[in-house]
């Protein structure tokens, strides 16, 4: 179906089902119970799952397939956001103008940056992309203030032109009248409450399309070519193939994904700020991809969901919650445990994510997906013929970077 083989079709269908059922799956605990704080089924968070999922899927096409580590992808995210907000200001709140344009502008931007950066590989490539992203960030903050509105961030004001604005049009982002921030159904079933949000489903459909596209890229001859670049670029050159057009294409595609994600961020909340372009934001998408599983289909999405979920949960926990949890311990021990745990929760979430990141890079270079496979492998020890140690005929996967 759709140009996929049976296994991939099944995979895609599972992903579609999971995505569409997210509002239910992420709401496993009844309202009012003490576990309700672990629910993640509210619109704002689910939207971020879908959007950062798109961002990470795109990043994976570059880093996962070709092995080029870009530290500047946040710049494209920012460009996408700015484009969409500008379309709000000039035309109207319908996202149909902004999103395609966001993909185009970020694609052009990526073409420019990629054309220059891809002349080098390895660490030089990382530093070049980093330099470009920092440049865009600095410019967005200073000279480009007329376009980006500097520190305040770009937003829509009442005196903006908005030439296509109809009389009865909603005053917030919408897709032909479907207002993003509204819920089309809030279902109360027993003690559970499920929220079905327009914005989430809009992003989810786009995310599914993005996922399908990346699945096709992974399975295509083009994807195979990108893998070849990662495995051994020198050998590829010796066979008479020029790798650069392929890497550039991958770079532009992943830049477009990032622009789309940025545009969607602005579609959910009509704001765009320069801090989206900062290099720590680029670091975040690297983190998501690595954490989930580099070069795998599902990994980046898992990583994005994982990071955004725990960011949300951890930020909510404070000292009182901790005391409540560890109240059963003897006093002195409770104090000690709470004191330690406090480092990692609340605003300490970044510390947790940094540690997690280090642990994954050190112990689990394949990310959550590899971890899952290892766990699964433990349970079916019997079929050991699958992982024969025979590098001559079944080469091990190479380390994930083109040096």
């Amino acid at each position, binding site marked *: 179906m759709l140009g996929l083989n049976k296994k991939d079709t099944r995979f895609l269908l599972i992903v579609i089902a999971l995505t569409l059922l997210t509002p239910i799956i992420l709401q496993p605990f009844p309202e009012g119970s003490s576990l309700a704080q672990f629910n993640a089924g509210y619109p704002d968070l689910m939207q971020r799952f879908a959007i950062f999922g798109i961002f990470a899927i795109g990043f994976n096409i570059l880093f996962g397939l070709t092995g080029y580590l870009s530290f500047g992808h946040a710049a494209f995210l920012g460009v996408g956001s700015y484009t969409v907000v500008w379309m709000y200001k000039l035309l109207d709140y319908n996202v149909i103008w902004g999103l395609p344009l966001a993909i185009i502008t970020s694609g052009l931007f990526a073409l420019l940056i990629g054309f220059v950066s891809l002349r080098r590989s*390895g660490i030089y490539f990382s530093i070049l992309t980093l330099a*470009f992203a920092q*440049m865009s960030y600095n410019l967005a903050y200073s000279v480009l203030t007329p376009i980006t509105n500097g520190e305040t961030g770009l937003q829509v004001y009442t005196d903006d032109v908005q030439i296509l604005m109809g009389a009865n049009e909603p005053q917030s982002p919408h897709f032909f009248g479907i207002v993003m921030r509204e819920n089309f159904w809030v279902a109360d079933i027993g003690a559970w409450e499920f929220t079905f949000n327009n914005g989430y489903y809009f992003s989810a459909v786009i995310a599914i399309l993005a996922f399908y596209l990346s699945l096709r890229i992974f399975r295509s001859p083009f994807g195979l070519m990108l893998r070849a670049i990662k495995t051994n670029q020198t050998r590829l050159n010796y066979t008479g193939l020029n790798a650069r057009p392929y890497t550039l294409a991958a770079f532009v595609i992943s830049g477009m994904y990032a622009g789309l994600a940025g545009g969607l961020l602005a579609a959910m909340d009509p704001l765009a700020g320069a801090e989206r372009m900062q290099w720590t934001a680029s670091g975040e998408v690297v983190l998501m991809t690595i954490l989930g599983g580099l070069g795998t289909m599902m990994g980046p999405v898992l990583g994005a969901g994982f990071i955004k979920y725990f960011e949300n949960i951890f930020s909510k926990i404070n000292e009182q919650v901790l005391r409540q949890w560890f109240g059963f311990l003897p006093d002195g021990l409770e104090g000690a445990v709470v004191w330690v745990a406090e480092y990692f929760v609340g605003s300490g979430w*970044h510390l947790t994510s940094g540690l997690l990141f280090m642990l994954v890079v050190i112990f689990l270079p394949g990310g959550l997906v590899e971890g899952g496979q290892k766990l699964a492998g433990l349970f079916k020890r019997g079929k050991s013929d699958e992982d024969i140690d025979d590098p001559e005929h079944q080469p091990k996967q190479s380390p994930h970077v083109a*040096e």
Partner: protein
Amino acid sequence: MDAILLQILNGLDKGSAYALIALGLTLIFGTLGVVNFAHGALFMIGAFCAVSLQRLLSLSFETVDPTRTDFLGNPLKVKTPYIESWFGPETGAAIIDWSVPLAILFSIPIMLLVGFIMERGLIKHFYKRPHADQILVTFGLAIVLQELVKHWFGANPIQTGAPEAFKGSFDFGVLLGFDPNLIIYPYWRMVYFGFAAVIVAAVFAFLQFTTFGMVVRAGMADRETVGLLGINIDKRFTIMFGLAAAVAGLAGVMYAPINSPNYHMGMDFLVLSFVVVVVGGMGSLPGAVLAGFMLGILESFASMNWIKSMIPGIDQIIIYLVAIAILLTRPRGLMGRKGVMED
């Protein structure tokens, strides 16, 4: 003419910081072949060594002074630092005043220790892994260190003053025959530049004139052969890592009075110092120092008003532009050796 002189002077202190951090980065890259994204965090830890020492020295106890009263009529509580009660008020006050220079001594063992722990505990396991993995794990470490500092010291910049003797500015212009108040330069920045020059000279002298330095240089050129000659090169490289950490830390300690330390100063400097390393040439120590000063001065030239009015925003991006131009035309950098990391 006076404006140019002023900009050169202004560029020197930032350039010194770039040069010192880039020197440490290059030492680590040249010896261990590791790309250390946590180097900016070491710079930051150095700056917070100065903060901690200042706080440590100003620890005080409260006494009630019955002869004086506060505005409510209660006896006034007077805070006396322990130092003042131990060494007498004048010596004590002087010690607190000089806490930043004293922090140099205080920070060296700390930074060496941090460096050793980092190398032995983490980086050691990444020699054989690809550069991207090294970047990623040290990036994670940088985040962790930065967040720990944020947890302990808060998110706001902490003012850490230079000694009273170095406050105020020196009028360079008068010395060179210009009108007074044209070229003024804060004393502490002169101190910083001098300090950086001493450190750079010390590192080069250490590498050039000691047996230890000779072995390290040999190891940088051909690690395997040195190992085959029966020299424990790993141990020496570990020491060099500690040394590089100490250089970054000292740069941070002395920078504290120039720019109040905050938890993200490391990240801010890191990107720029990587750019400096690349411009100077990966693995070239003189290149790192030269490029550090050069880019520092270039940056302050670019922030001159008439240049900014000609090309708006140039002060924000000049360093990156230079780096991009260098990488594209001469990838080994200004003074990089041929064939080292050229692709």
